[in-house]
């Protein structure tokens, strides 16, 4: 019975394919807006949809979610290419945003012109990332949701056992300003702690963090691929590789079941953690990890991850969708998302709001995460993004660094393997 009703509901939506049908056709005078997201979101869980629907009785919001961005993104491209099957609002991961602004801007609504969107409220670099190049019209097609300023999450108990300070200020001071000192701390830790517990979860985690602290990564300002010759990238690779060659890494691969189990078993003492990872750690480390984890300032301000919302022109209700996208990304809502889900706001205007500035994380020893991550966010350099960021980052991590970390290859071998794979992937 319930199933049949749902099915009928599905059929009733069909008339909305007609763009003119608008509010009157959906039944009960409602407009249904769909939001398509990939795994790591949280707009729904933070109650933002419910709040918007309560404020706008004519609007119903539905979310479609695909767990992995690897499945989500190609589908989004296919749908944009044919102008069909799109949700009214689509999420885009930061590693894909440059490709979207460079190749799909003409298919997306210019959200910079939507009323209520205030450019000054956003971090300038985040705003720039969502804006198409001048040659493509220069429209701001993506509004930033969250960013991923990083800290270092660490286990107080393991630090203490190794004779290291465990207070977050003192811990941050161990490596302040220099990723090399993070490595030195690791060596000191290992000397005392012995072999049982590794210092970091994985070498690639370190690499992502170090790479995220430099302005120029894989592309230069002219859009040329420079990762091969960019000392910042190679430096990050080599530094991270030292964690593997020095035996400081637990040799795990992030976001695999083994990594999750690593948290549960306390297999490592630190992990570079963007704001969005805290909830993940809490869940995986479980109640047993409470009062053991804490979070300190990273050596250098660094960003890892973050997302945007775009509104396809081909959507059924582009105008209403643009309004919703603007609302969802406004500082107040971003602050709520941070409060509820830990996604750090990309709207800098939100940092002054008490929900952010006063935020503490109980699981992490009551750490003032609002303060820690705001500081990191404001120090993050304006990153130059490029269309193939995702492919380059992925191959560096999952081919190059993984070979060093898990297969015991030399850093040079790992680097060469990654370069070969990236060259092949970039060659059209």
């Amino acid at each position, binding site marked *: 019975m319930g199933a049949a009703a749902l099915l009928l509901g599905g059929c009733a939506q069909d008339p909305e394919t007609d763009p003119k049908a608008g509010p009157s056709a959906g039944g009960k005078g409602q407009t249904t807006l769909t939001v398509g997201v990939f795994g790591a979101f949280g707009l729904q869980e933070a109650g933002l949809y419910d709040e918007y629907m309560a404020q706008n009785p004519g609007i119903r919001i539905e979310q479609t979610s695909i767990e992995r961005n*690897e499945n989500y993104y*190609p589908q989004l*491209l*296919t749908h944009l*290419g044919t102008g069909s099957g799109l949700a009214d609002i689509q999420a885009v991961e930061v590693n894909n945003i440059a*490709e979207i602004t460079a*190749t*799909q801007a003409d298919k997306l609504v210019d959200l910079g012109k939507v009323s209520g969107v205030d450019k000054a409220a956003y971090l300038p670099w985040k705003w720039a990332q969502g804006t198409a190049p001048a040659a493509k019209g220069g429209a701001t097609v993506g509004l930033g949701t969250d960013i991923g300023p990083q800290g270092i999450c660490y286990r107080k108990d393991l630090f203490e056992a190794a004779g290291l300070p465990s207070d977050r200020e003192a811990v941050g001071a161990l490596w302040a300003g220099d990723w090399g000192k993070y490595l030195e701390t690791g060596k000191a830790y290992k000397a005392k702690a012995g072999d049982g517990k590794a210092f970091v979860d994985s070498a690639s985690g370190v690499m992502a963090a170090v790479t995220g602290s430099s302005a120029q990564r894989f592309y230069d300002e002219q859009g040329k691929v420079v990762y091969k010759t960019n000392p910042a990238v190679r430096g990050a690779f080599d530094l991270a590789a030292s964690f593997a060659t020095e035996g400081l890494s637990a040799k*795990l*691969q*992030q*976001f*695999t*079941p*083994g*990594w999750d*189990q*690593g948290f549960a*078993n306390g*297999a490592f003492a630190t992990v570079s953690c963007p704001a969005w990872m805290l909830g993940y750690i809490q869940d995986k480390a479980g109640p047993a990890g409470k009062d053991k984890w804490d979070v300190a300032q990273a050596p250098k301000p660094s960003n890892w991850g973050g997302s945007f919302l775009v509104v396809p022109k081909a959507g059924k209700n582009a105008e209403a969708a643009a309004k919703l996208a603007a609302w969802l990304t406004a500082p107040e809502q971003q602050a709520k998302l941070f409060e509820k889900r830990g996604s750090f706001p990309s709207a800098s205007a939100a940092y002054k709001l008490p929900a952010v500035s006063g935020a503490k994380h109980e699981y992490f020893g009551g750490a003032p995460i609002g303060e820690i991550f705001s500081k990191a966010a404001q120090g993050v350099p304006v990153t130059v993004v490029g269309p193939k960021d995702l*492919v380059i980052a*992925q*191959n560096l991590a*999952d*081919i190059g660094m*993984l*070979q060093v970390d*898990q*297969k015991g290859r030399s850093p040079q071998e790992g680097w060469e*393997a990654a370069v*070969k*794979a990236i060259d*092949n*992937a*970039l060659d*059209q």
Partner: protein
Amino acid sequence: MTDETAVLSPSAAAPERAAAEGGGRGRPGQVWRSRRYRWDLRWSPYAFVAPFFLFFAAFGLFPLLYTGWAALHQVELTDPDSMTWVGLRNFTRLWDDEFFWNALRNTVTIGLLSTVPQLAIALGVAHLLNYRLRGSAFFRVAVLTPYATSVAAATLVFVLLFGRDYGMINWVLSAVGFGAVDWQNGTFASQLAVSTIVIWRWTGYNALIYLAAMQAVPGELYESAALDGASRWQQFLHVTVPSLRPTILFTCVVSTIGATQLFGEPLLFNGGAGATGGSDHQFQTLGLYLYEQGWVNLHLGRASAIAWAMFLILLLIAGAARLLRGRGNSR
């Protein structure tokens, strides 16, 4: 003869002529019927194959031709409508594409690792199921359950079982004194793990097929073999297996085709890392490489060329098998 021309002549003229030739009352009807009969005989085969080929033309041929065309172009998923002609470059570059050869090699080894044990175990299990068993219905249904499980669900479980640090299989291996195995990173180990998922899903199904064929083997064959003093094992080798040859051949063909297109298991076995098939591409199959080129790197033209290359390689294998069989028969 007249009938023949009647069939071939324009339809309207036929009845009158048949009538004019002065038959009795039944004659025109008979001609009509036989004409219809011949018409039916001639065209009905086409009518029978038509539904398949109609759908094939719409949903099979068009994609095939499109990819064939795309394979001759540089075309990206970001903008599938803009194509740049590159001739055979997408094909010729495969010669120097070590990732392609690696994937081809892996496809062959994983194919062998999964198909051979799968069919061998299936044969053994079928042999056991062929005994008079209590609860045989239970066994027969139980061995078929893996087949009902989706690749995604099955692989998810196996990834946990094959975990390096905390997986159940390594736990058992350590408990009995073997070292833990890095199922993800070892070339052979990872290929074996991927093959295991395939074997798990398909062995029971093949066993039932063999079981059926076994039950059709005439009992006299066994009796006379027993009279000749053959042991049970010898009977299995010299009576059962030869009698099952056509069935074995059929399952081989089906498994081989399945093995060449292997994709879901190696994709999902990779935990978090997408379509690379391991840090050294150690379990990247052709199907997975094609997916990586098309859906991760977004190069539709290159992906199309890989697909066509796969297709051509299979055709070659099929052709070679046919030639060999033809020779074998003529001797």
